[in-house]
């Protein structure tokens, strides 16, 4: 049995009058790709924001790699090992693609002011390593030729791939991808699926929010379904797709599985 990478139980979050999450839990094991699906407004991104520290949960236990962590400081969560992409793609638009990924290396490197100003040997070596690794990652996701281009000039699909490269640069235990295929055309989705597949084959653990059914079916080992902030089903993509409660949540009561 593979190690548990992420274990969340009882996560709840309230916004004013809305209970956005009620008692949501998830367990992800090393090397798994777990999908988080549900109708719009079900709380998927809220859950993401909670586990990555953007929102402070009202309750819940959170463990990463067996160790408990407090999801309240975003940069601490990143340090602990969750790297995420955003639904609306949040790159550093005026920085080049290469620089974006180099920022991803910030977490695992340490030269500071002194090294920068005096260009010590340690600093120079580290800078070279950072740039090299960043280029590798750009190559890995397939946009190496855009290394010197400002991030905002890249196409939508390439920007998404850049965001993934940047997340990979932080050497995460868990990659959390928030609707990576959102807004993509069919061609871009194929490229994206190949990329996520490659990441999975290289042993990464992935938590994925997605609406695209084909993507979810094709990539995920397991799926958890949320509706109105509550978990309503969990299991293999095949089973979940035929689960009555899930169908009802998406399509309304009275529909049957095909």
């Amino acid at each position, binding site marked *: 049995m593979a190690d548990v990478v992420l274990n969340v139980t009882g996560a709840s979050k309230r916004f004013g009058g809305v209970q956005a999450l009620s008692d949501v839990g998830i367990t992800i094991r090393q090397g798994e790709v777990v999908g988080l699906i549900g109708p719009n407004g079900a709380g998927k991104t809220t859950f993401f924001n909670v586990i990555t520290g953007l929102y402070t949960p009202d309750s819940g236990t959170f463990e990463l790699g067996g160790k408990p962590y407090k999801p309240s400081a975003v940069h601490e969560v990143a340090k602990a090992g969750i790297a995420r992409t955003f639904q609306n793609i949040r790159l550093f638009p005026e920085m*080049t693609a290469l620089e974006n990924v180099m920022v991803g290396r910030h977490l695992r490197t340490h030269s500071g002011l002194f090294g920068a100003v005096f260009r010590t040997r340690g600093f120079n070596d580290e800078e070279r390593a950072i740039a090299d690794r960043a280029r590798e990652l750009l190559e890995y996701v397939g946009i190496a030729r855009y290394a010197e281009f400002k991030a905002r000039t890249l196409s939508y699909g390439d920007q998404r791939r850049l965001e993934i490269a940047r997340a990979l640069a932080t050497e995460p235990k868990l990659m959390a991808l928030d609707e990576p295929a959102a807004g993509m055309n069919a061609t871009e989705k194929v490229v994206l699926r190949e990329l996520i597949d490659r990441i999975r084959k290289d042993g990464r653990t992935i938590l994925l929010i997605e609406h695209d059914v084909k993507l979810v079916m094709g990539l995920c080992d397991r799926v958890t379904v949320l509706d109105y902030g509550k978990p309503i089903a969990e299991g293999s993509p095949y089973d979940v797709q035929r689960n009555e409660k899930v169908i009802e949540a998406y399509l309304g009561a009275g529909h049957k599985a095909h």
Partner: protein
Amino acid sequence: MKDNKKLIWFLAAAFLLLVLPSVAQYAGNFWVRIIDFALLYVLLALGLNIVVGYAGLLDLGYIAFYAVGAYTFGLLASPHLTEAFPAIGAIFPNGLHTPIWVAIPLGALLAGFAGALLGAPTLKLRGDYLAIVTLGFGEIIRVFLNNLDAPVNITNGPKGLLQIDSFKLPLVGFDFGRPGSLFGLEVSSVTKYYFLFLAVVVVSVLICYRLERSRIGRAWMAIREDEVAAKAMGINTRNLKLLAFGMGATFGGVSGTLFATFQNFISPESFALNESIMVVAMVVLGGIGHIPGVILGALLLAALPEVLRWVSGELDLQSITGGRLDAAILRQLLIAVAMIAIMLARPRGLWPQPEHGKAAPTPAS
């Protein structure tokens, strides 16, 4: 070949910079003084560029750090404290003459500390709120400098500090405050200061350049571009913002110390809000985040009005316009018009960062 071309440009520029004071001196010491002050502004602009340009933090109270540096040196190297407090006067019967090599690092340190202190409450604030709070800090410091002459006379209030020591290198017997000789040539005091300030500016440019191209510089820019994403990448935005404030403030403090030792007199008037705004204008008009642009902006806003003021004097504009338009008014008018016109014509600044990385072609399927 390209490298050779760059080298030639570099040598030409270096040569021009070296002979500039001699040329200017033909026109009079007045002009060299203007260049000296312009160099101090360049230092300020470079420092503010770290805060506003790299980290994206809009600081409208930057002149406060200039004041910290200036007053630190002014208090430690002038007769004020020994005269105002007999107890101190007894400890230092020959007066307080803190050597410059102690005063500059001390001023830099205190200013840097002040920067972190002033930055701390602003860390959670949105961009424009941050601007107003920093503006407020700047004003608070100015008001205190102006009023801390009672009940205990610490700053001497609006009268300011006089008889501040000049820059002296006692071991070599070199006094920047007096004319002397350099390599057998007669040089005035202002020319000596020119070379001193030029050296400091060159070092500062180097430091900024290196900071820009480093892990810290990239982290600052990430914060500027998207703070949430930066945090998600593990960047400790709080510490880095404090670092940006501190670094920027340090530049301000060093510049302030040099100002005090150059002018030998400081008063709260030199540290008013419009000075903070001037420095911001220099950075933005020049080209935010771009070192050559920032230097250009500083030189333009510092020196050009003086040039035009001189022109108006030559043309005797005051009598032409019946006393309404004099040199000071003209200077103010020109700065105001420059700020508006340049922004309308070139919103990214006169010399912004070159657009490296043009639009990517449409992706192949």
